């Protein structure tokens, strides 16, 4: 009964939307409501590969995909480094205090996502907090351009996705066998050597999970590049958004979304192979 309900939810909420998007990619754009002719109609197959041809050949979309993967990778890597340090620190704290630290990591989730991103706008814009403070302190004379730069975008991404990296890393590090690290130290390994030969390799599955939990949603992120990134940040999330809501080219949007999904399945498959070993 439970299982049937689970499969039903999976089918309705995951499989069906996916199949609709997949099918839409083979449809034809039109000026109607909805603005797409489905690939199957009364007369059988009536779809086209036009949208796919566009998405795969036009360098605009290729760049968008590439830029998105690059941003997601940078975000994932930074979240891993910062998250690993945080998780290590939390796991080393006295148990009563670990709970407090974890609650603080999750605290940002208590406010809305949009609100948090907007807060960065307020901090970083030319007349924002940071610039005002720096100018009043006499450190700079003209405001630094921080908002709408790649740095601001990455900052916002890392800030938004860091908890997703901290949690799996903490779960793994808190359960680890500390005698292994003592044994390594006893055999002559210094702190960093212990970290690189014992702690990190044994945390590899958690590191991979943490990376994917950040990388996958980050690759499709729309809001943060839109609000914090520069106009040159033409990411795939933005491109899908534009095709869908502005150009009303639903087949192109669907084909692009499907291509992104296919690209993201690669690291997941790699992770599965790693975990199976």
């Amino acid at each position, binding site marked *: 009964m439970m299982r049937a309900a689970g499969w039903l939810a999976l089918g309705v909420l995951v499989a069906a939307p996916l199949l609709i998007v997949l099918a839409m990619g083979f449809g034809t754009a039109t000026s109607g409501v909805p603005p797409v002719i489905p690939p199957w109609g009364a007369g059988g197959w009536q779809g086209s590969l036009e949208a796919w041809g566009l998405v795969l050949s036009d360098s605009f979309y290729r760049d968008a995909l590439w830029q998105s993967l690059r941003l997601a990778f940078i975000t994932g890597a930074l979240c891993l480094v910062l998250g690993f340090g945080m998780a290590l620190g939390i796991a080393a704290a006295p148990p009563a205090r670990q709970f407090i630290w974890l609650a603080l990591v999750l605290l940002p989730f208590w406010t809305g996502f949009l609100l948090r991103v907007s807060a960065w706008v307020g901090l970083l814009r030319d007349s924002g907090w940071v610039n005002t403070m720096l100018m009043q302190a006499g450190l700079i004379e003209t405001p630094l351009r921080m908002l709408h730069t790649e740095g601001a975008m990455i900052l916002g991404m890392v800030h938004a996705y860091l908890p997703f990296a901290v949690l799996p890393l903490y779960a793994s590090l808190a359960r680890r*066998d500390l005698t*292994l690290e*003592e*044994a390594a*130290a*006893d*055999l*002559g*390994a210094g702190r960093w*050597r212990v970290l690189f030969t014992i702690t990190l390799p044994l945390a590899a599955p958690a590191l991979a999970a943490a990376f994917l939990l950040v990388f996958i949603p980050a690759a499709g992120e729309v809001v943060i590049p839109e609000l914090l990134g520069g106009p040159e940040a033409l990411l795939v999330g933005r491109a899908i958004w534009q095709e869908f809501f502005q150009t009303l080219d639903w087949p192109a949007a669907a084909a692009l979304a499907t291509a992104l999904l296919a690209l993201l399945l690669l690291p997941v498959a790699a992770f599965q192979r790693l975990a199976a070993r």
Partner: protein
Amino acid sequence: MTRRFGAAVALDALSLDVGAGEFVALLGGSGSGKSTLLRLVAGFDRPDAGRIHLEGKDITALPPQARDVAMMFQSYALFPHMDVATNIAYGLRRAGMGAREIAARVAELVALLRLEGLQRRRPSQLSGGQQQRVALARALARRPALVLLDEPLAALDAGLRERTGLELRALQRRTGASFVMVTHDQAEALALADRVALLEAGRIAQFDTPRALYERPATRAVARFLGAANILEAGGPVPLDAATRAPAYALRPERIALRPTAPARNGTEAVVEEVAFRGADTLLLARAPGGLSLRVVLVAGQAAPEPGQRVALGWEASALAPLSA
């Protein structure tokens, strides 16, 4: 050394001297401080007071990796992501040894600990006894001056424990390193160690050879811990005649014999309460006048009395080991 954890004193101004090439067992119940002492010597913990010297050098402030001490953990703490050879080589790598030297030393240890053919296995693919030998090989690899062993036999099956213990002692003699072993098993401590330090509440109750510890326990507590000695109070219900005056005496159960009649001193009449045949010997529990319960061990072949029977018991004056407290 002294080590406190909050209000609890784990080690109370304890002092211990281990000779070069000596095999010392730290024997004690849980909470006696034996594991704390081992962790202090390995460098995982710092004493609140006191110093640790190794071969004349003060190592109190050194981190574990800078001490010429190797520890074998109770759980073995083998690195699960490395094979046997890599585990053994871990300490050699850290010492900056060349690849060829490392390979030679690993081969030597593999032969010494009978690990041939297992070099490429992961720890999870080994039996308990094999894991124990890998842990030992890894600890011995750098030829440390001092090897610390935390309950080295506790995780093994009973059948494997005795033989492995003897192998451990043979290995200690061959390597010439000092071994300090923590154990709660008195038979293990007495069988393997050159000297046994009996720890009690963070202090050394007695530090002596196994034979001396067994035959001449210093205190009532030692006599009681070392198993089953009878403790006779001077001026108690049974009149004693000992060579030295002491407040109490320990009397080993096997030193008590059945006599035709009870002697006036160093003997008593008693009623047999329980008889337990144990193979190599028979254990009697006998109640003497004044409520004193005596444990008596009769070697096999002697006719054992029946429960309820009255017997006369006697012992030599030399069998009474004086206790100081």
